[in-house]
């Protein structure tokens, strides 16, 4: 009997349990959402959750927003298959938070209101820069959404043994509908509470698996690593860098590209940035980043146990048979550690971890949808289309409609993206964010001479170059693991465009400023600088 048949059979045995757990989570969080929705009265509540969350609460919600399917399913799978090279994701995703802490979180909280565009357009001509910020927010969020939808599809087909196309599409549609309900009804308040609940569930689930894996090895990490190296069939080089990225000069460049995109991406992710508006002060924003670094750091440390544990305890071929890029390694490990596919313990742990993964995806997807629909309503609709004359009610109603629109786009893309590598897809979103958003955020806050033209060159230049390079990379065509494996129009050799597009984004911002004819608005910069550092006039 092949492994797939086994998996399908054991899954069908557990189906009632898994569906019950999924349903409990969805109903409980929808309950929270309805409760939060009743307290959502104005734009401040809808976009920023009333700005009354504490530093700890927001730190928890940031963790819930950030630890996506890529972190949980993707990294565990990447380590399980590529060994040490998969661990780069954990390190890059964490170190990146220092950029947010030292340079972005507090000034953004002090000077912005609802969206990333508020800060990008602060000193600039509003309409062109807000348009650019809105477009960039939506593109980054859709890349990220694609990864989450792919994760949801993979997970559900494994667990529920759904193999028919119609069944898989139905699941992706269901995820889309639930996320639209979270955002349209609960706004930022509902989304924040869903993310907090999810963070607690994810940490608890990961702690449990980590504990059980370590228990098997008597808490001897060296033994765990040794067994992973042996069982993978690859030997000691499984524990060393280079298994995936050390093949040749090009893959080594790809590793650098990925590394740069990870460390510079976080501080340019719109769905993360808007979380800083949910706390009352810059100090609370700082405190929330510190909590997030602690929680996320502990979680990423545990990915060592998850990934190497999967490599040590599962059959490598079985992991690949279940999902080519290893996305199902974590739930399979849970099943194994609970006693194996035929045991009750295995069945329960598999169901619990799968429900946690499902919760993870839903919470992140809600955050992404909120960020993009907020930007659509506040940056594009209220400030560009209506030129600042829209009422709060009209603005929120635009945000709700945008949620339905973006949710629909995500569902359609999700149906096509099921077989892509989840962590790799998220790394693309990081590269786009670091190329298009981060240069303008930093220049706006810290460079006196920066002009509207510089901002536009940087945002559009970074956005277009990164998306363009991805389009002609092996991610999209030319390889067995590509989105379209049957055609080959790739000429860019790297999977991650960051190495080219991030420096280009910074360079264009600088160049666009140097050659622009207009003078920077000195008064506006004084206002931004004083407000961002002192918190005077903060919303």
């Amino acid at each position, binding site marked *: 009997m092949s492994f797939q048949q086994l998996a399908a059979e054991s899954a069908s045995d557990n189906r009632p349990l898994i569906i019950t757990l999924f349903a409990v989570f969805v109903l409980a969080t929808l309950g929270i959402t309805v409760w939060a929705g009743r307290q959502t009265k104005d734009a401040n509540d809808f976009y920023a959750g009333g700005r009354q969350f504490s530093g700890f609460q927001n730190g928890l919600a940031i963790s819930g927003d950030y630890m996506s399917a890529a972190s949980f399913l993707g990294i565990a799978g990447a380590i399980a298959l590529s060994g040490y090279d998969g*661990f780069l994701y954990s390190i890059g995703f964490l170190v990146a938070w220092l950029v947010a802490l030292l*340079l972005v979180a507090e000034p953004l909280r002090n000077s912005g209101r609802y969206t990333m565009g508020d800060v990008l357009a602060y000193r600039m001509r509003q309409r062109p820069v807000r348009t650019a910020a809105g477009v960039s927010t939506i593109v980054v969020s859709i890349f990220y959404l694609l990864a989450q939808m792919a994760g949801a599809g993979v997970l559900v087909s494994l667990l529920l043994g759904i193999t028919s196309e119609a069944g898989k599409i139905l699941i992706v549609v269901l995820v889309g509908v639930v996320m639209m309900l979270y955002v349209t009804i609960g706004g930022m308040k509902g989304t924040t509470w869903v993310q907090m609940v999810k963070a607690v569930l994810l940490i608890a689930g990961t702690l449990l698996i980590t504990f059980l894996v370590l228990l098997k090895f008597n808490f001897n990490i060296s033994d765990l690593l040794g067994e992973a190296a042996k069982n993978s069939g690859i030997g000691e080089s499984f524990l060393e*860098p280079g298994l995936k990225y050390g093949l040749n000069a090009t893959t080594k460049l790809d590793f*650098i590209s990925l*590394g740069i995109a990870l460390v510079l991406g976080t501080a340019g992710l719109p769905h993360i940035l808007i979380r800083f508006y949910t706390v009352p002060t810059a100090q609370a924003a700082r405190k929330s980043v510190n909590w997030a670094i602690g929680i996320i750091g502990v979680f990423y440390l545990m990915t060592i146990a998850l990934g190497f544990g999967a490599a040590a305890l599962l059959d490598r071929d079985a992991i690949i048979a279940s999902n080519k890029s290893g996305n199902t390694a974590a739930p399979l490990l849970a099943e194994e550690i609970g006693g194996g596919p035929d045991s009750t313990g295995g069945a329960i742990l598999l169901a619990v971890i799968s429900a946690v993964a499902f919760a993870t995806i839903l919470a992140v997807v809600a955050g992404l949808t909120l960020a993009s629909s907020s930007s659509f309503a506040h940056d594009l609709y209220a400030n560009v289309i209506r030129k600042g004359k*829209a009422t709060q009610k009209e603005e929120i109603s635009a945000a709700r409609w945008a949620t339905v629109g973006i949710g629909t786009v995500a569902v359609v893309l999700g149906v096509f993206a099921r077989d892509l590598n989840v962590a790799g897809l998220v790394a693309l979103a990081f590269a786009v964010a670091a190329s298009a958003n981060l240069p303008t955020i930093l220049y706006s806050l810290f460079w006196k001479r920066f002009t509207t033209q510089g901002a536009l060159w940087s945002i559009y230049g970074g956005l277009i170059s990164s998306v363009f390079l991805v389009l002609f990379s092996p991610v999209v065509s030319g390889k067995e693991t590509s989105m379209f494996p049957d055609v080959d129009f790739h000429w860019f050799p790297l999977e991650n465009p960051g190495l080219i597009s991030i420096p280009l984004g910074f360079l264009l911002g600088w160049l666009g400023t140097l050659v622009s004819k207009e003078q920077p608005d000195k008064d506006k910069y004084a206002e931004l600088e004083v407000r961002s550092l002192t918190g005077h006039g903060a919303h």
Partner: protein
Amino acid sequence: MDTAPADDRPDDQRQQVRSSYAEVQASAEFGELRGAHRSFAFPLTIAFVSWYLLYVLLSNYAGDFMGAKVVGHVNVALVFGLAQFLTTFLIAWWYSRHAATKLDPRAEAIKSRMEERS
């Protein structure tokens, strides 16, 4: 809806507020606050990004060194990776202490003076 606070004020008042921002920006006190932030955050950012890039480059081009065993199956690469975690926690703690003692009091003083005046 502009990004500036309280947009419903008449133009002349708005102009007043804006020129007062320029005054504050030019003041010695604000210069100290800006200096205390930049002289801490900028070099530290360059330092931790370089430290991280060193790790990425070593992983790529110093395979033998990274693969050297430290204890049992634990190699230099893993220790290096864990060191990145440790430095991240330490830098976060160090910046927060700096902000609480050197930035917050200065920012608070300037802010309350501005609020008094308006």
